């Protein structure tokens, strides 16, 4: 802190870089949201202009609302994301606890095996997954998506959480054992609260790809009743004509829930990222 005060030029450069990066990152979001409030003509003639009195138009949102199913799509997305997130965090943390806490034969190998999924994209297994889902009759159910996303999120969760759990004091866990706490209570009441920042980090990294995914909803659950919001928005994208107003409005709405979830986790997340940096 005090060093930056001595080098205003350096602080300025750092801020300039950060601001430029923020602008680049926010630009697509900005364009999406701004254009969702404009008429179709204005979207194409002045894509960067703010909606003015002439160009302001809610037709996109009206189309989305009229489509009717959008509330259901939202619900599907929320159910899939929240349940997947819950299972990823629960099972990820449990596996991480076992790996970091107990000495058993093959511990290292098990850890490597569980982390392998970080490097191998789950989409490579799409055909096999589809066959399994067909065989188990889970096609066109939200359960199919939840299962796949849980599998997809687990490797990173196990990897990050087991590193963090190693840093939880052994003495604390041992004190719990001497006082007669079960391993479950040690896990849930002593260890989990202490790795909360890491949990938030994992939650954010897990949640966003799930919410945004188009691939698995399209393949595993394309039915009307199980469509997610990302898939649902695609109805406005035709091969020849696209209803851009509706697409942009749907996408703008789709940003909201993730934003809310992100805000919930971000306080913890920032603590996690800066843990150790500020002590």
């Amino acid at each position, binding site marked *: 802190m005090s060093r930056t005060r001595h080098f205003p030029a350096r602080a300025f450069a750092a801020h300039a870089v950060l601001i430029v990066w923020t602008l680049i990152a926010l630009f697509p979001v900005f364009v999406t949201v701004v254009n969702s409030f404009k008429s179709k003509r204005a979207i194409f003639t002045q894509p960067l202009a703010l909606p003015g009195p002439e160009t302001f138009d809610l037709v996109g949102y009206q189309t989305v609302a009229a489509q009717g199913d959008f509330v259901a799509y939202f619900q599907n997305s929320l159910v899939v994301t929240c349940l997947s997130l819950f299972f990823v965090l629960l099972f990820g943390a449990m596996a991480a606890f076992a790996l970091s806490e107990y000495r058993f034969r093959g511990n290292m190998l098990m850890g490597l095996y569980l982390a392998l999924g970080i490097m191998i994209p789950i989409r490579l297994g799409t055909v096999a997954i589809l066959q399994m889902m067909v065989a188990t009759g889970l096609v066109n159910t939200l359960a199919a998506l939840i299962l796949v996303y849980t599998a997809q999120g687990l490797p990173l969760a196990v990897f990050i959480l087991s590193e963090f759990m190693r840093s939880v004091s052994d*003495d*604390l866990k041992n*004190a719990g054992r*001497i006082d*007669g*706490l079960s391993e479950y209570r040690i896990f849930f009441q002593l260890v989990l*609260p202490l790795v909360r920042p890491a949990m938030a980090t994992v939650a954010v990294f897990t949640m966003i790809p799930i919410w945004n995914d188009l691939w698995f909803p399209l393949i595993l659950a394309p039915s009307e009743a199980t469509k997610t919001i990302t898939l649902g928005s695609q109805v406005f994208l035709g091969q020849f004509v696209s209803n851009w107003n509706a697409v942009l409005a749907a996408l703008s709405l789709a940003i909201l829930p993730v934003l809310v979830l992100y805000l919930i986790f971000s306080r913890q997340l920032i603590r996690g990222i800066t843990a150790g940096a500020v002590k």
Partner: protein
Amino acid sequence: MGQLTLSGVTKKFGPVDVIQGVDLAVADGEFCVFVGPSGCGKSTLLKLIAGLESATAGRLTLDGRDITNLPPAKREIAMVFQSYALYPHLTVRDNMGLALRQAGRPKAEVRAATDRAAAMLSLDTLLDRRPAELSGGQRQRVAIGRAIVRRPKLFLFDEPLSNLDAALRVNTRIEIAKLHRELGATMIYVTHDQVEAMTLADRIVVLRAGKVEQIGAPMELYNDPANTFVAGFIGSPRMNFLKSAALGMSSHTAGVRPEQLQFVEGPGAIRSTVSHVERLGGETLVYLHTADHGLLTARLFGEHDFAVGSERGITFAPDRVFHFDEAGHRLR
């Protein structure tokens, strides 16, 4: 109540023998201190007694009951950790009462036990705080209180004072000694602090590389060490080891405590050069370089002046010398 025996206890971590066959009997009400250099297995031995690690071989009994395979909570022991290890989400009262509540005791009894322990350690005013709102010394007192509340047969302490500053360490040490007198419970205490070991212990167990080197009362170890390791480890500053051959003695090594070295002039004295002087007020430590024996330490009472680099003759009374053979064993 609280008689512990260990027979042939060993512990391996993979291929490494961390504890190599320890036999030990701790009497009821005894204050037993484990000392030894860092990494010698003191904490591991304590965890074996607590049941936090399982012994590779050997047997442990407490009051005649075999506890080798019992889980920690069933062993009727309590442990105080170096890092306090208080539950961060619970108040001081709940921290102290947790074990009894886990054991399913009635609320009133838990409350009474907690209040009694809090009064003993003057924690009464802190009962509703969380650990984060306490100072280091207060946290350690809560940790000790948490141990007392359970009325265990055996108290285990793993370097409980090493995170405290010097003044607080002395106070807490006295408090622990007082507790031991009041409770009359059996205590096992791990430390690498000489003073703690000497002042608190009824008996000291000196460990080296997972083996017991010697067991005895503090003064027994000081006045009658079994080998060079114990002789060098007990007593501060450390015992001087001189080459017997250069002194015309029959043993291999001659051990002389720093306070037994005297400054004399004349023939027969060992020639030495003063290389450093530490004045501590009550005593003065003089580090002397000798041709035959390397660096020796002399400890004098009161204040003394020695010019660094000056030549001094030193000697010692022959009856205050400990003799050791080549393997380091004491020759009596």
